[in-house]
């Protein structure tokens, strides 16, 4: 090994020696990367390719499986069940993402302010929901929402009226907004907080010398420094909203009248495949949603970054 490496390091390296060293470096590189690449192909590339293939066929009552080209996509583009779900998740994200990110931002700025007592304890406590499985979070909130023996029920009983009905058709989307906000506000707080810690304190000191108050420092230094982190958090939140599945699927048994099987696009694709045996169409819906999510996330990122450059 050393003998082969040495010529590469000596000033009078021969062309053949350099070529051999480069080849060996390439071989070693692939050795490290290969296990990941194999799993990447099996668990990401192949399923996506297979789903695209499936989406081009259709199971017909007569004649078995037939190639139908883009017919499944045409059906998806005009499917009211799918687009009803898309509208619902758009409504959801327009409400939920700003609420969650503002909570996370306020908490992160408070942690970073240097004026908060017990900052370390608050940081851990607010992050705790991240360690709670989403399923368990929905189960607990489902109990709390319960009209008969949950906290909502107790409150209604105390007030003598059906004031709080989180599982009713009008309110169930709000109930989901609350659960998702509870799950991820602390996580986003830590992302913002970590980004704030990278700002040089000299900037703050200089600003203070110039007579800037704490709010001015937040507005002129901290928020601009957080712009990248906010854009990324927004993109991930939008992706998450479009993929909404766990919360409606787990609340469905508790609120069967409020949550239909096409409540979100993902729930719809799941139902198509598992209850309807329509794998081809289910694959089409999954791909349409994947592309839609990617495009929207991309647009948000580009717009966010462009504002950054200005």
């Amino acid at each position, binding site marked *: 090994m050393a003998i082969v490496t040495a010529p590469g390091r000596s000033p009078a390296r021969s062309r053949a020696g350099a070529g051999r060293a480069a080849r060996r470096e390439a071989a070693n*590189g692939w050795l490290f990367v290969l296990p990941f690449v194999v799993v990447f192909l099996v668990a990401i590339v192949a399923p996506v390719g*297979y789903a695209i293939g499936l989406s081009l066929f259709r199971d017909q009552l007569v004649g078995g499986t037939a190639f139908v080209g883009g017919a499944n996509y045409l059906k998806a583009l005009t499917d009211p069940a799918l687009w009803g779900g898309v509208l619902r998740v758009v409504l959801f994200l327009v409400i939920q993402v700003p609420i969650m990110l503002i909570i996370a931002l306020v908490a992160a700025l408070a942690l970073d302010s240097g004026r908060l007592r017990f900052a370390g304890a608050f940081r851990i406590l607010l992050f705790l929901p991240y360690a709670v499985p989403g399923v368990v979070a929905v189960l607990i909130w489902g109990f709390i929402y319960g009209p008969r*023996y949950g906290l909502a029920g107790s409150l209604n009983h105390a007030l003598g009226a059906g004031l709080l009905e989180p599982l009713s058709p009008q309110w169930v989307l709000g109930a989901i907004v609350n659960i998702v906000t*509870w799950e991820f506000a602390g996580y986003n707080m830590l992302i913002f907080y*970590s980004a704030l810690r990278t700002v040089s304190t000299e900037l703050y000191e200089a600003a203070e010398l110039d007579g800037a108050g704490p709010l001015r420092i937040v507005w002129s230094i901290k928020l601009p420094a957080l712009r990248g982190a906010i854009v990324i958090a927004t993109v991930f939140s939008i992706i998450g909203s479009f993929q909404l599945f766990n919360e409606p699927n787990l609340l469905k048994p508790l609120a069967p009248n409020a949550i239909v099987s096409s409540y979100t696009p993902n729930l719809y694709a799941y139902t198509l*495949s598992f209850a309807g045996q329509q794998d081809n169409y289910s694959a089409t819906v999954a791909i349409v949603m994947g592309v839609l999510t990617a495009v929207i996330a991309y647009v948000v990122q580009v717009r966010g970054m462009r504002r950054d450059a200005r």
Partner: protein
Amino acid sequence: MSALRAPAIDVRRARAPRRSVLLLAIMLLLTAYTLLPLLYLVVNSTKSLDDFFRTFGLAFGSGFALPANVAEVFTHDGGVFGGWLLNTLLYSVVGGGGAAVLATFAGYGIAKFRFPGRRALFAVILGAVAIPGTALALPTFLLFSNLGLTNTPWAVIIPSLVSPFGLYLMWTYTVDAVPSELLEAARIDGAGELRTFFTVSLRLLAPGFVTVVLFSVVATWNNYFLPLIMLSDPRWYPLTVGLAQWNAQSAQSTAQPIQNLVLTGSLISIIPLVVAFLLLQRFWQSGLAAGSVKQ
């Protein structure tokens, strides 16, 4: 980083010793909101089914039924819960742990070796960071069911093995923590690349590796959609799918009520992760910092 920041914090404290009551009030409110469901979970895990139905949600019941509830959780339905716990451990350790190992190898390989296709490979993998697991789960299920892999542990483990974000984190970490001169020196000493990796680099990469292990284990531990669609035999369920099934059962008015089991089982399922997060604070915080700095 913390070493660099420490004096700065002291300066800030010295200059602005005033503590804000308003900030404290806001944070107390947020903490109350955060802890409410967890408090509800703990309180109700100590109640018998009878007390659960009859007493106020945040008040303790007439007796302390937690031990009885725990015993019932592990014996109900032929002791299926213990199996779910073991399955979750298996999927998290093999799937999540394996994901961290593969991500570390590959992140290191991309950071420290030049080979044809490296940039393209990295770009494709980074693109895959944005693909959410739930969007991939259904296509993966369709493929695996065609291959006859569904309803086996592999159906959950194989998709859990790939973590593009973990690779990205380990790439960042390698670039920062492993100096190329050190590798060059090891090469001149005649060490093979694998030996260099295990004896020199891995020690430097340890904090990053623990971070990625933690995140990928948590992701696998908490996964619901993938095992839900992949597994039909309750014996292979992880905790998430099993608990959801118990909950759906108890929500039916005709079924035997087992709300106490759903609550106590939920409490048992979150304790290991909460403990892990509290003990390993340093690691996940540095991981989050790396993720937010390098975007």
